[in-house]
C-alpha cells in the first residue's frame, strides 16, 4: 500500500505531501520524504551509477527502511516525486507506471494559470487525481 506521495521542488521545498494512512504519522512521513532527498541528490550528482540511462527520470529505490520503501522520480525541471510504500515486493514496472501517471497529473496541475510556480499545489483536482492513481497502484499488474 502506498502510504505517502510527495512533490518536492527543485530547491527541496515541499510542494505537495499527502499521506494515505489513517494513523497520525504525518511527521514521520515528512521526515522520511525529507531524508530521501539526500539520496536523490546523490543519485543526481553521481550520474555514473545511472550512466547508460542518461535521461532516465525514474530514480529507483532510494531508501529502504525497516517498514517502508521509498522510490524517487526526477522531472526535467528538477522537481522530485517521492513515493513511500509499505509493500516490500514492488515491481519496478508498477512504480514506473505510477510515476508516469503522477507526472502527468502534476503537469496538468502546474499548467493551471492560477498556480504560482514554486508554491504549494493546492488544487483539489490534483489531490483527487493523485488519490485515484494511488488507489489504482498495483492493480494493473494483478490483472
Amino acid at each position: 500500500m502506498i502510504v505517502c506521495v510527495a512533490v518536492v521542488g527543485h530547491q527541496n521545498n515541499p510542494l505537495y505531501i499527502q499521506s494515505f494512512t489513517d494513523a497520525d504519522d504525518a511527521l514521520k512521513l515528512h521526515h522520511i520524504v525529507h531524508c530521501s532527498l539526500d539520496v536523490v541528490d546523490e543519485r543526481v550528482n553521481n550520474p555514473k551509477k545511472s550512466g547508460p540511462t542518461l535521461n532516465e527520470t525514474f530514480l529507483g529505490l532510494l531508501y529502504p527502511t525497516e517498514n517502508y520503501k521509498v522510490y524517487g522520480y526526477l522531472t526535467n525541471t528538477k522537481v522530485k516525486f517521492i513515493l513511500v510504500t509499505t509493500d516490500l515486493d514492488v515491481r519496478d514496472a508498477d512504480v514506473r507506471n505510477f510515476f508516469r501517471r503522477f507526472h502527468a497529473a502534476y503537469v496538468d496541475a502546474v499548467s493551471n494559470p492560477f498556480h504560482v510556480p514554486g508554491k504549494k499545489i493546492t488544487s483539489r483536482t490534483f489531490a483527487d487525481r493523485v488519490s485515484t492513481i494511488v488507489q489504482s497502484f498495483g492493480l494493473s499488474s494483478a490483472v
Partner: protein
Amino acid sequence: MADPASTPLGKMLLEEITPVVMVLCTPYVEESCLKNGLSLIQLLSPFCDFTNIDVPVRTASDQPYRLRKFKLRLFYSSDIRQPNLEVAKERLKKVITHVGEKNFLESSDPSQVNNLLSRPESEMLPSWFQFFNKELVRTLSFSDHEAFDHPVACLLVVSSKDDEPVNRFVDLFNTNKLPSLLNDGAMDPKIMKHYLLLHDNQDGPFNKATKLLADMRNAFGQNDCQIICFNSSQDGKIHHQDNPWAPFKSDALPTENLGGFLNLDDLNEIKDFMQELSSKHIIPYMEQKIRVLNQQVSATRKGFRNQIKNLWWRKGKEDTIDTPNGPVYTFNSIESQIRILGDYAFMLGDYELALSNYRLISTDYKLDKAWKRYAGVQEMMGLTYFLLDQSRKDAEYCMENAFNTYLKLGSAGRRNTTRCGLWWAEMLKTRDQLKEAATVYFRICGEDTLHSAVMLEQASFCYLLSKPPMLHKYGFHLVLSGDHYKKCDQIKHAIRTYRSAIPVYKGTTWSLIKDHVHFHIGQWYALLGMYDVAVTHMLEVLASTHQSKTTQELFLRDFLQIVQKTGKTFEVLKLQLPVINISSLKVIFEDQRTNASAAAARVKESLWRSLEEDIIPSSTARSNWLELQSKIMPRKYKESNICVAGEALKVDIEFKNPLQIPISVSSVSLMCELCANPEEDANSSNNEVQNNEDRTSTSSGDINSCLILSEVDFSLEGGETTVVQLTVTPRIEGILKIVGVKWKLSSAVVGLCNFEFNPVNRVVRGRRKQHSPSSDLKFLVIKSLPRLQGFIHSLPEKTYAGDLRPLVLELSNQSKSPVKNLKMKISNPRFLYAGNQKELNADFPACLKKKMNVEKSGRHANVNKTLQNLYHFPEDISVQEETSLSWPLWFHAAVPGNIPLYITIYYEMEGVSSIMKYRTLRMHYNLQVLPSLDVSFQLSTRPSRSQEFLLRMDVVNKTSSECFQVHQLSSVGQQWEISLLQPVDSILPSQSLFAGQSLSCFFMLKDRRRSSTSEDSIPSLSHIQSDVRLGPQDNSEAFFDVSSSPLADFHDCERSSRGMSSQGCEYKVDFVFITQLLKGNSDSSSNTPLVFSHHACDCSPSSMSPISWLVDGPRTIQHNFSAPPCEVNLKMTITNSSDAIASVHINTFDSPSSNNQLINDATTSQPPEHQSGWSEIPIVNDTKIITTEALTTRVPKSLSLESVPQFIWSGTSSTKLVLQPRSTAEIPLQICVFTPGIYDLSNYILNWNLTPVNDGENQGEANKSSGVCQGYPYYLSVLESNFKD
C-alpha cells in the same frame, strides 16, 4: 592510505588489545601509594605505555622484528572478571549525563548550515563519542570467548612493612582469591609471576628492604624479584609540572597534588622497572609461548593429514554435543590454544601469524556451531585485515559476518554486536565510507535506548561529514537521537541534538518538521525550568497556519503556560500572533488640513487638492512663506510632517489572525517617542538612541504626561482580519516619532512591532514631498491651533431624487482664538449650495413660495457663486472662540445614485502660529438617492401657428411605496405661457401619484415673444402664466417661485451640469415640475411636506426643423374625366424660422416605392432630437394631427394604403428656392389626375440646407444645418362630374 596503526581505530586497537597484567598487592602497599593520592595501578599506569620500546621480537618465524609500540594493561585481580551489566550500564549513563551537563552549558549553535560545515572536523565531532565508545567496549572485557583480555602475567607486590614478606607473596597468589576466569578453566592458571617489593622511604632505612630482597630472590628465583623504593620526598610538596597521572585519575580534584612524595629518582626507578618488566619478562614470555603453541598447533592441525583428521573428527563430534551455547572449550583444548596463539601474535604485532591462526580456528568454531566464538574470531580477523591494510573487502566481510553472527545470537550477543559495530563503523570511517558507517551506527541501535541515542547521534555526524554532506539525513538522525535521549530522560542531550538540527530545517518550508523541532525544544526547556529560552522557541511555532486546529490550540496553550510560569510579561519583538500587515499601515494626521470625520480622511488626497486648489493660497505664495520660515526653522523640520499639539494622530493598522482558533488581543497601542526639545535632539543623535533603548520605561513615565495613547482591545476569530485605529495625541510641542505598535496576546505576552524595520510601502497621507522612510513617521508637533469642527445637521443618508430641503451647517470652534475669512467649496453644487444667513430660520417650504412684493435681488450674484462651486462667507462672519456658527445650506437630490459629497471649508487664524496661517476643514458625506418620479416632456410644433407648441408631460412614479402629490409645472423664463389643455381633475382626480402610477398631461405652450410684438410690454402679471397649478384648483396656495433662490440656482446648476448654456435659446423651454410628499414616512420630518422638484432642460419640438411648410389647395374637385386630365393647382407656403439662409429643394415622385426608400434614409440620417425619457420618436410631419390616436398614424402606413398612383406631378419634378432668414415663400404646385378617387399627395420630399449667417451664434442648430423632410398627407378627393353636366 596512512598507516592503519595511526588511524583512530588502529590507535584504539593498539591501546585496547594489549597484554593484561594481573596485580596482587598487600594493604600496606596500597597505603603507601595512597600517600600520593594514587592507587598502585594508578601509580604504575603512566609507565606502562611505551611508544618506542624497541625490542626485538621473534615469534613463529625465524626472522626477528622490532616492536615499537607496546602497552601493558594493569588490573587488580578482583577486577579481572566480566563487569556487572547493571553497574556498567549505570556507569555509561553517568558518563552520558556528565557530558550532557558539560556540553549543554557550553553549547553554541551555529545558525546556518554553511557555518555548520565550515568548522573543522575535529570541532564538529564531539570528543566525548570516543570516550563513550571506549567505555562501551570496556564493558565487554574479560569475556570467556576471547583471549586478549586474559592476564599474561601476574605482578605480586608486597610492602617492606609487611611481616614476613616472603610468606605474604605466597599468600597473595592463593587460588581462592584468584578471578574465576583462572579457576573455571577458561584460562591457564599457570601464568608468569613477578615479585616486587615496595619500599616506602618514609617508613625506614633501605637496609632492611635489601635484606628482604635477598630472601625473596632465594625463594622465588633470581630474576623474578625486584625492589622499588619510593616516597623519597619527605615533605610531599613536589609538584609535577606535567602530571603523568592526570589521565588515569579522572575524578581527581584540581587542588590535589598527585604524586607529591615522589621525586624524580622515584619516577625513574618506577619507569625502569616497568620497562624491564615488559622487555625482559613479559615479551620474552609471550614469544616463548607463541613458539610453543605454534609448534603444538603445527603438529596437530597443520598439514594435509591433520586437516583430514580434524574434519572427520569434527563431523563425528557434531552428532554428540549440541548445547545451545556451542561446545565448552577449556584452556587446554586445541581450539583455545589456537585462539591464544592468535591473540598473542596480534598483541605482539605479528598480524600474519595471528590471521592464519584466526582463520584456522574460525572454520573449527563454525563447524562446532560455537557462534559466539566464531563471531569473536571473525571480528579479530576483520581487525587484523584492517591492521595489515591488505584486503578491504575481506576486512569488511569479516566484520559484517561477525556483526550478523552476533546479531543472530539475540540478547546474549547484543553488547558484542555493539562493540563489533563500533569497530566496524570506525573502520569504515577511516576509509571515508561515512555513509556506510552511519548505516552501521544505525544498525547498532537496539533495545537500549540510551545507547541507541548516542549511536544515532554518531550516525548523524557521519552524514554531516560525508562528502557531499547529507544534511537531510543529518537532521533526521539528530531528531531521532533526540527522541531517544528524551525517552531516557536525558533532556539536555535531547535539547542539544534538536538544536543542532535546527539549522538543517531553518529557511526551508518543511514546516511540519520545523514546528515539531521548535515545539519540543520549547517544551523541554520548560521542563528544565529555562522558560526564557523555551519561550523563544515556542514563538517559532505560534503562527503555524498549516497545522490542524487542535495542534494550534496545543501550541498556544503550551506557550501561554510557559509564559505564565516565567512569572513575568514577556516583550517579544516580532511576535507572529496576530500578523500585522505593515503595508496596510496608514497614518492620518492633520496639519493645515483637518477632517470632519473619518470618512473624509479616507478620501484620496488628490481629490481634496483639486477641490481646494483655488481657495487655499497659491503654491507660489506658499513657497515664499517657506522661505520666510526657513530662517527660523531648520530644514529638517520643514520636511517633516506637521501636526498640532492636542490633536490626535490616527494610525490604521490591519491585524490578522493566521490561526484557526480565536485569539484575544488587548491593550493595543502605539509606541511613540516625543522629544520635547527639538534643537537638542538635532544636535546629539545619541540622545535619540538612548530614547530608543529605554523606550518602554519612559513611555510609562514622564512621556506619558505629554502623550495620550489610545488602547484597543479586540479578539479575532480564526482567520479573521480587522483594521484597528490607534491614536496618539501629543500634548506638548516637539518631535513626535511613531516607533511601532505593541499589544498583549491573551494578556500574557507583549508583542512589539517596529515600523522602521520594515520596508516602506505604506501610504502616508498628506505627504508633500518624498521623504526618507524614517521621517515618514516623524512629526513636528507645533503649538495648539484653533480647529473648526463641522457638521451638517439632518443631512439624509437616503432620499428620493428631487428632494429639496434646507440644511444647517454648524461650525464650532473649541479653541481660544477666533477664526475668520471663511470660504467654502462644495464638490457637487447640483446637490448642495450655501444659502443666505437670513434664510437660516426661514419657514420651509413657505419661503419657496412666490411673494408678490419680493425683491429679486442677489439672484445673479448667486449664479456666479454657484458656477464656481465656491462660496465666500461674508467678511464680517467669523467663528469666535468657543462658539459655533450655523449657516443654511440648500440641498437638492438632483439625480438618483450613490452620490459622494465633498465639502471643504477654508479658514484663517490670526496671530496664533507663524507656521500655519490657515486651515481647511474637509467634510465628506455619502448620499444614497433613490429614483422617485420619472418626468419627461415632449414638445410638438404646430406649423400653422408656429408660435404655439403642444407639450406632453409624462410622469411615472418609480418608488415602491411613496405617494407624491403633484403641485405645479413651471416653465423657466418669462417668454413662455403655459396652460392646461384639459382640467387636471379629469386626468388626475386625486391629485396624487401613487407608487407605480403614471400620468400624461397635455399643455399648450405659447411663445410670448411671438405673440406680442414688443418685448418690453411684458406685463408683470403675465409671468404668473408661466406656472400651471396641477394640484387642487381651488387652492389658494401660492406657487413655488422657480425664478428665485434656491430653485433658480439649482436649475442653473442642472443646466450647467448638462452641458447647456444658461442662456435660453429659441424654441427651447426649461420646465420645473414640483411635487410634494405629504406624509414623509421615510424621514423624520413628518409634519412639513417634503418638496420635490424635477428639472427638465432644453425641451424643444421633437422634429424641430427650421423649415415648415403648408400645402394649401382645394380639397374636393369635381371633374369630368371625359375631358382632358384634371389639373389641380396647389400652393405650398414654406417658412424659414431660423436665423440662417435656407435653400429648399422640393422633389416630387410618382412612384411610392422610391419615396418609401427615401424616407427610410431620412430617418436614419437624422436621428431624433434628444429628449429625456423619449427615445423612440419617429419624425412626425403631420402637423394637422394633434390628438393622441392621430399620433399613432404614421406616415409609412398611410403610404401603404395607396395603390398605384393615378396622378402625376406636373411641372418640374424639382424646385429649388432660397429663403431669407425668418421669411416665407410660396411656390405653386400642380398635379394631373386621370381618374376620380381620393389621392394622398404626400409623395414628395423637401431637402433643405441652412447657410448660417453668423457662425457660432446658434450652436444648437449648427449641427442641424440640413435635412430631408417627407411630405405629409394631403388628401384630395376628385369626383366625376358627369352628373352635373
